């Protein structure tokens, strides 16, 4: 392959000059047709992050992929934003010669299998909504010319723009990504090949600006943010279609959260070459199990810490570019399976021991913090949320531990003065055990109503200790 390229390259170069001159017209029309085609499906997704400390309006680029359905990079809906705080979602259809059109929408959800998220138009409008764009699963080839089409920031009227560049490398990483030699348009842009086929999506990465508009940047007087930063600091990586095809084929349904598959192994580590050789493995990706959730799927199937996973369903583990990436690749592979699927792992229990097969039946990934119900005790300046699996696991508490978790403490508030801290796990309020969020909410409201001048006394678990926190209400 290499030899061939070396031989043909001078020939190509020699021929190129006259050809280029001849093809100027067709290339321009290809660019124009890609730009037209793409921009008819590009929209802005705007929402308000309604947090305890204030509202923040954010907008980013998305692409219509189905009837009223818009796909955006998951980076726009940071997994740390609680779902309940994502409000006032709008789809903006940019117009050049008239006002932008704003359509009400709802947040459908994130798809952690593929790093994309979806919003759906909720109001019916008179005229046709934007037509969906079809993505094609073509693996980008190094050297191939690609075009990205995206939207400029709000400061430039969300105008669509196009860049031409070349595929520089296909990277594996925890998820595949494609490096280009030049620049790509803003996050949420669509990447096309020279046949005009949509072959990828520009994802958030590194310090590249994710948003086309951020009200916080507007408000910053001390350190002004360049609203056109994406022009000077453009993305250089895109995600090939194959990585998010699953989401397009089976997009998340409204009101039916995705059930993600899980085996209950929170800690995995890729072995280095030295370590692999010590365990007698040669040129073979291997992942060591660090911990298993007691009574989780893996634990029940017999997987144990320190065992080394070599194969999944008889096939060697996928390679990463670095051993550090192996756990991510494996985790992602499992995430893409379905709840109830069986997976057979071939494991090495230790040095000079025989490999064994262990079959694990995947279960549903437990709820995560961003979907947990919350309660903002605005009067005293703190928020709590339901406990989720990771809260008890990370604190080494029994999985049936009751309580609520402090998710926010306002500075200069009663709770702040009382030195209540984020991540405190509240087990008692006013001498009564806390069982769940609902009970906490109603007991709290009742107490504050009946005894508005009395202090609220919370007992919390903080790291290795418990603390008694007395929150004095403002006078």
């Amino acid at each position, binding site marked *: 392959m290499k030899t061939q390229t070396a031989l043909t390259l001078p020939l190509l170069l020699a021929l190129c000059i006259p050809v280029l001159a001849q093809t100027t017209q067709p290339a321009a029309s290809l660019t124009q047709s890609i730009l037209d085609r793409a921009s008819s499906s590009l929209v802005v997704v705007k929402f308000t992050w309604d947090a305890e400390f204030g509202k923040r309006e954010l907008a980013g680029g998305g692409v219509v992929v189905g009837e009223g359905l818009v796909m955006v990079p998951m980076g726009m809906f940071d997994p740390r934003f609680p779902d309940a705080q994502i409000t006032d979602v709008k789809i903006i259809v940019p117009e050049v010669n008239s006002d932008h059109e704003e359509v009400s929408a709802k947040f459908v959800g994130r798809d952690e299998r593929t790093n994309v998220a979806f919003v759906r138009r909720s109001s019916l409008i008179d005229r046709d909504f934007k037509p969906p764009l079809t993505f094609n699963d073509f693996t980008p080839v190094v050297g191939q010319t690609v075009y990205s089409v995206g939207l400029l920031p709000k400061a430039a009227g969300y105008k669509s723009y196009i860049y031409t560049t070349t595929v520089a490398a296909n990277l594996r990483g925890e998820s595949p990504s494609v490096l280009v030699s030049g620049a790509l348009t803003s996050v949420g842009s669509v990447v096309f090949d020279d046949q005009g086929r949509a072959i990828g999506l520009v994802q958030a990465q590194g310090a590249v600006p994710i948003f086309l508009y951020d009200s916080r940047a507007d408000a910053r007087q001390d350190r002004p943010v360049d609203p056109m930063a994406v022009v000077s600091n453009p993305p250089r990586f895109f995600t090939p279609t194959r990585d998010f095809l699953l989401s397009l084929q089976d997009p998340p349904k409204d009101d039916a959260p995705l059930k993600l598959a899980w085996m209950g192994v*929170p*800690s995995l*580590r890729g072995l*280095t070459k*030295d*370590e692999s050789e*010590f365990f007698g493995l040669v040129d073979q990706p291997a992942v*060591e199990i*660090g*911990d298993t959730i007691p009574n989780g799927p893996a634990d029940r199937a017999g997987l144990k*810490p*320190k065992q080394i996973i070599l194969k999944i369903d008889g096939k060697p583990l996928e390679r990463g570019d670095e051993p550090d990436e192996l756990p991510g690749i494996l985790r992602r592979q499992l995430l893409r399976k379905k709840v109830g699927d069986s997976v057979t792992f071939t494991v090495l229990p230790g*040095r000079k021991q025989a490999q064994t097969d262990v079959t694990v039946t995947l279960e549903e990934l437990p709820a995560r913090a961003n979907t947990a119900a919350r309660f903002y005790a605005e009067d005293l300046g703190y928020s709590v949320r339901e406990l989720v699996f990771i809260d008890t*696991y*990370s*604190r*080494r508490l029994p999985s049936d531990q009751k309580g609520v978790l402090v998710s926010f403490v306002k500075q200069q508030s009663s709770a702040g003065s009382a*030195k209540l801290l984020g991540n405190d796990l509240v087990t*008692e309020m*006013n*001498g009564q055990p806390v069982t769940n969020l609902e009970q906490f909410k109603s007991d709290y409201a009742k107490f504050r109503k009946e005894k508005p001048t009395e*202090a609220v*006394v919370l*007992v919390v678990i903080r*790291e*290795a*200790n*418990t*603390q*008694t926190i*007395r929150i*004095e209400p403002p006078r």
Partner: protein
Amino acid sequence: MIGFKMQLMNFSPTFSRHLSGKLFLIALVGGCASHPQVTTRVSEPFPSATPARVVDVTQKVFPAVVRLDVAQEIFVAGKRTLQRGIGSGFIIDDQGHVLTNYHVAGRAVEINITLSNKERVPAKLIGDDHWTDLAVVQIDMDVMRARKIPFNFTLPGDSDTLAVGQDVIAIGTPFGLARTMTLGIVSNNERTFYPDIQKIDEYETGLFNNWIQMDTPIAPGNSGGPLVDLDGKIVGINTRGIQGQALNFAIPINTAKQVVASILATASPTRAGRVDRSDLGIDLKPLQDLESFYNIDINQGVLVNSVDRNSPAARAGVRTQDILLAIDGAPVNVRFPEEVASVRKRIADEPIGKTLVLTVRRGKDVLQFKAITDKLEGYVGEEKGFDAWGVTVREVTRAYANDEQLDDDTGVVVTTFSPGSPAARAELASGDVIRSVNGKDVSDLTAFQALFTESTDAKDDRVLLEIQRGRAKRSAVLKVTY
């Protein structure tokens, strides 16, 4: 931390609730002494700081104040190494014992003392106690005799009778400026930093005493030097300060008296003197403003804020939210933060292994539990370096295991490693707990040392370590070259 390093004082200018981070240790210079034959004056409760009086006291104490140049053992980048600093101290008896701060001379392997007459003589560490930030060193008396060097020693006063507002003198070596005397007043005689815990590096300190706060100007290098009343008696050991704020802190001499006695009583030519203390494993909280919540009388008992796992109190059945009313029938009452240290000290002063009857109020019930005290252990265990692997490790203490939420206190914890060493290449991290070496369990530092020796003697070129990192286990393979 011993302080003659400027970065020690690198606290931010604003005074926030993280007071602990802003206090500097004023390690390193100092000393104060008074002649054994200090003439006591006509009883005058708070003699005024007339120039004559101040000069008189200073002249008496000066000849007992020394400067210490110290090399302390520390572990950095996978190796045992020496850290040099300067501090103050004062001679306390005719044997040439010098009292100073732990953060000046604790863990010292090399000490030189400069007397007020500018003579320099070697000294050695007799014992130390990080809990009170005190250390006792002894001047090499053979050298003193051979060179016929005269010296004086100080007389201790009574820090319990110190009055706020009374004049006090500090003597020491601020920034290496030996024999510096400064004058100020006692600003507060029962300062506590509760609930913050002061630390010397990672060593807990100040849990068992309140502090004398004074506006006497002191600076890094004053640490270990004496705070003197106008009778020329030592009332405190200058230890900490908030730079540039005239907010400085001294350890009361009455705290030091007990510590010195214990160190001198336990020291032997082969072993450093120490202070053994008892522990119940409970965190106490003042009950101020919580009395009505717990429905108890004002000034009755102390709140058990937290109970350490596997601690004597936990084993006895004491729970968080209990109100501890009495120990062996004697009431313990903590209404204010200033009262916490004395109750902690009360428990610490009990003999190790003694059964204590704890009377506890739980809801409406009054219960009694019997707890057998454990020996108090700090967060920081004994540390050693293992050059062939390029790693330094520490014993896992019970306190460390509790704070870091480890399953138990077996194993050793990685503290530092040298770049490019087998440990670094195997991606060990600070805080990793080594549980086994080549499949053999590591119960403690001694066991680790033995397994290290066994492996290096056998010239193993691959060593398998089992590591606990957070909740996860991992294997690490050291690739060792000889």
